[in-house]
């Protein structure tokens, strides 16, 4: 595989794994944030939103420290025999999950908030257990939210740069994703290659957003298809 295609493949793999993990992790967080009246709701909301406002380098820096040999998580992973995560693909996945968390949680939380309590109560009176209600009422009604969350998370992870550079460096086939590859080409004044990759990214992002908006329109519940 050419280094370019290697970077593309690595990027897609990272975004795919991150999106899948985040849908699993983000759904319960979003559900709790949407339903709970607990005092910790506000601080946790803020914590989830933090990657939106923090410079990626700050996030990357703290992750590097935390996952490194002197960090709490680094010591834990070493003791578990996993080794150190910085400058590995797994480290990138961990960083991406944190970096893209708000892009999963916020659309899901908004989708959950629009679900009328009444429908869940009706489901309960029709013998559906809480778990059953979640799968038979919440998930179908929040489908547009899940789609938005998945697409935004995927696209946002693809565009990740600062965090990757801080925690993953630039190892071909391991941590050299598209955004870093473009940066390298520009540094080396290889504008042709930089153009190809950049234009590809631009087109990809545009197509993703257009299809998201049109799909979301069609997925509105209650609309007869």
């Amino acid at each position, binding site marked *: 595989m050419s280094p370019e295609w290697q970077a593309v493949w690595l990027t897609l793999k990272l975004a795919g794994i991150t999106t899948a993990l985040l849908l699993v992790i983000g759904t319960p967080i979003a559900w709790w944030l949407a339903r709970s009246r607990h005092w910790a709701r506000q601080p946790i909301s803020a914590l989830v939103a933090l990657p939106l406002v923090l410079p990626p380098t700050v996030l990357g820096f703290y992750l590097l420290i935390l996952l490194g040999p002197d960090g709490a998580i680094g010591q834990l992973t070493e003791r578990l025999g996993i080794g150190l995560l910085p400058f590995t693909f797994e480290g990138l996945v961990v960083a991406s999950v944190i970096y893209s968390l708000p892009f999963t949680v916020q659309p899901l939380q908004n989708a959950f908030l629009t679900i*009328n309590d*009444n*429908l869940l*109560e*009706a*489901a*309960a*009176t*029709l*013998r*559906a*257990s*809480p778990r*059953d209600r979640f799968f*038979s*009422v919440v998930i*179908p*009604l929040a489908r547009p939210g899940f789609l938005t969350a998945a697409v935004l998370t995927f696209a946002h992870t693809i565009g990740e740069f600062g965090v990757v550079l801080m925690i993953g460096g630039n190892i071909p086939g391991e941590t050299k994703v598209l955004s870093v590859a473009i940066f390298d080409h520009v540094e080396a004044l290889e504008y042709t290659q930089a153009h190809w990759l950049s234009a590809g990214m631009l087109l990809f992002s545009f197509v993703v957003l257009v299809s998201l908006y049109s799909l979301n329109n069609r997925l509105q*519940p*209650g*609309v*007869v298809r």
Partner: protein
Amino acid sequence: MSPIQASFRCRFENFELSVDLLLPGKGVTALFGHSGCGKTTLLRCIAGLQTSEGYLNVAGECWQDSSGFRPTHQRPLAYVFQETSLFPHLSVSGNLNYGYRRIPRAERRITFDQAVDWLGLTHLLNRMPAKLSGGERQRVAIARALLTSPRLLLMDEPLSALDQTSKQEIMPYLENLRESLAIPVIYVSHSAAEVARLADHIVMMDNGRVVAEGPLQETLARTDQPFGLEEDAGVILNATIEQVEPEWHLCRAGFDGGELWLRLHDGLVPGKPVRVRVLARDISIALAAHPDQSIQNLVPAVIDEIAREVTPGTSMVRLLAGQTPFLARLTTRSLHQLKLEAGRNVWMQIKSVAIVD
């Protein structure tokens, strides 16, 4: 032991619910009162949608006591909500099947086709809820509730969100249910007209407490008017059409203790049972039957009880025609002039009688 024993306490910021009730195991019990009186909260406590301290036993099964609270989805009840609660992502048949599928086959006492037939939904099965009218939505919600083969049916003002036409459209279905269902129904309403049409038993609530309860006819005929109906105070009686006189557009209905002439409507044929409402303000009292006056309905009765000055200048008189109670609202002055007192035989002149069905 009463089929339904309910006792709840729950506190809110500016409201406290505190009730102890014994309710009948069949027929329609109306929870009646102004908005904010706690009737919906009580219904939600029974459903387990509202947590509360208390005790609830339905048909010999304990649903809540100090040691346990059975969650809503494990209570064999059905609930029809005030606003539409149909699942927007499911078609009408998807909605109907939602509860039906969750009931073990052996416990189903009503089939899908029966419910569809009862509520006239055959032509709507493939529609999405967004494409239904308000009345159709409530009919689907009722069918969906019945398909869980509940042992208790709870209805929270199922008509209040509907316009007059939809109400008229859905009422006959509710009346049919009253006739054909063998399970108790608890029906929350603030409409005296709905209660008059549907209820067999009535529980009047105010400010989180039960202020009166009992069989509908007896309770409506109380001179102390616990229902606060004042202007609309009156009785309901069950009668049967005995004779029709089409040339006068009238028909005669007999009840236990007398007979009344009613305006003739389509569908009133001899033998048909009707519910008749007689308002207290429409009854005046005469000491003798005067044939030379225009009122058609003259019914002999005995004064049973008098409540003087229920409001300044007016008094409430309870009369019995046979076993059937009536209420008449008179000025206290005419009470004095006619020297009315309990035990006296009089004639009721009834200005207006309405069939509630």
